[in-house]
């Protein structure tokens, strides 16, 4: 009973607690150790005396005491005298977690700091903000648990040693740093979207939770609103993205009755809000593209192509160039699209969609033999049997 209560508090409010502790203890690793120790003693105390009226308050206070103990045990005590004095004051004041400031925004900026590797940012965010356990984070990456444990420990050690600050960046750094946070959230979402629920953890839901948290904690930021819009507009089509035989369907060929209307409406509304703020950014462009794909009258390809061209200004990557070419072809310019895709051969030769797009564009421009060769490449790299079957059917259509 008390164990279930503890599990629920930690699942739901671990981020809030950890953020409050990091800001008070001043050290990521020490804060997490203190929270861990507090959870361990909660198991004993709650089983004996029952679950306290405010489990969150109990944990925060216990963790502050553990942090003070931790500093006292430390051999280099003189350096910690100030920290102990501050923490003792905090602890005596009996902070109420419902009324203390929510420090999770600072926590997510620290977890997604560009001085950490991208994979580490994702792992640390899932562990710290979403409350996933280390084994669960390991499962997400198909990593062994000790390997993931080491990665997380190294990250926390670097945060302390290199003094990665626990702050919301100032206006000068904010756009880049916010983009790093939103990209991390988006990576979590796409991992969930491609992986499906195999690991037992719904990463799409976690990503949407994070994006909602950011909208709440960093209001009036068009890129944040657009990131949530992008996730919702994509997630709304999740149930319809595969045909009956498992084959991947583009939005235009999906059964619209399977789309989630509530998520679509919320996504459209958020995007409108974001665009009205007149400060364009990559997530607004991506969300606008997702919105055009979901349009009731079918996708407006010239408009989508124009948005991809604009996105290239922010993200001049081969994959964005490929997507731009697809939109160009759909808008009636297959030859121009083909020329653009052929430039990407060297960079994307291992990327399955590159070969599928190349094959389609060659076929559209009447080059059947090269198109067949490109289909063979795409078929060899196909992600599912249904996708392979679809590509083989297209290849056979060329005679």
């Amino acid at each position: 009973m008390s164990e279930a209560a503890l599990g629920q508090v930690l699942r739901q409010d671990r981020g809030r607690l950890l953020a409050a502790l990091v800001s008070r203890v001043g050290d990521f690793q020490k804060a997490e150790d203190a929270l861990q120790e507090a959870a361990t003693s909660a198991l004993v105390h709650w089983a004996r005396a029952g679950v306290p009226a405010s489990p969150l308050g109990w944990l925060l206070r216990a963790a502050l005491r553990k942090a003070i103990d931790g500093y006292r045990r430390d051999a280099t005590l003189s350096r910690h005298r100030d920290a102990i004095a501050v923490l003792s004051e905090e602890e005596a004041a009996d902070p109420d977690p419902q009324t203390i400031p929510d420090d999770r925004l600072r926590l997510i900026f620290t977890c997604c700091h560009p001085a950490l590797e991208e994979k580490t940012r994702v792992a640390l965010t899932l562990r710290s903000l979403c409350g996933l356990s280390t084994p669960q984070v390991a499962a997400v990456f198909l990593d062994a648990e000790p390997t993931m444990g080491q990665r997380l420990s190294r990250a926390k050690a670097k945060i302390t040693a290199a003094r990665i600050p626990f702050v919301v960046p100032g206006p000068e750094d904010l756009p880049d740093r916010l983009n790093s946070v939103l990209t991390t959230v988006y990576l979590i979402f796409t991992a969930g979207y491609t992986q499906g629920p195999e690991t037992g953890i719904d990463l799409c839901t976690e990503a949407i939770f994070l994006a909602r948290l950011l909208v709440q904690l960093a209001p009036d930021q068009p890129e944040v609103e657009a990131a949530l819009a992008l996730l919702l507009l994509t997630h709304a089509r999740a149930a319809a993205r595969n045909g009956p035989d498992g084959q991947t369907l583009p939005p235009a060929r999906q059964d619209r009755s399977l789309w989630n209307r509530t998520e679509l409406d919320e996504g459209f509304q958020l995007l409108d809000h974001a665009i009205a703020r007149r400060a364009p950014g990559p997530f607004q462009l991506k969300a606008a593209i997702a919105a055009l794909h979901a349009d009731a009258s079918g996708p407006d390809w010239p408009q989508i192509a124009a948005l991809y061209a604009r996105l290239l200004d922010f993200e001049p990557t081969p994959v964005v160039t490929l997507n731009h070419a697809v939109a160009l072809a759909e808008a009636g310019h297959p030859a121009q699209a083909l020329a653009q895709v052929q430039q990407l051969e060297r960079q994307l030769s291992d990327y399955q969609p590159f070969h599928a797009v190349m094959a389609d564009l060659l076929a559209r421009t009447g080059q059947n033999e090269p198109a067949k060769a490109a289909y063979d490449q795409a078929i060899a790299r196909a992600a599912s049997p249904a996708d392979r079957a679809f590509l083989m059917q297209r290849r056979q259509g060329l005679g």
Partner: protein
Amino acid sequence: MKYMITLYAAPGAEPGYGTPEFDAMMGEYMTLGEGMPGVATFLAGEGLQGVETATTLRKRGGKIETMDGPFAETREHLGGFYLIEAADLDAALRFAAEIPAARYGSVEVRPVMEY
């Protein structure tokens, strides 16, 4: 907190001596940090002569071995360093971003050990 910033670049990557670009670059090095008061304090910094002047030494079993050349044979060589005092990594990175070598090479930022 103190940070050591080491500058790496491939030989010939920086503007050539005697060009206006070289003079502009040297001007930037001379005034580095002046436009960022409060971000970081300059403690020390030097530029190094080319890797062809480097000698690497190690001592094994009491015996000194010396080798001509740098410790690591890489395309980009250590060319200089800064020692700065900054409040946190963000401030140190802001200083590092203004170093001309960041444009034509790479700069590495590392916290200095505290005893």
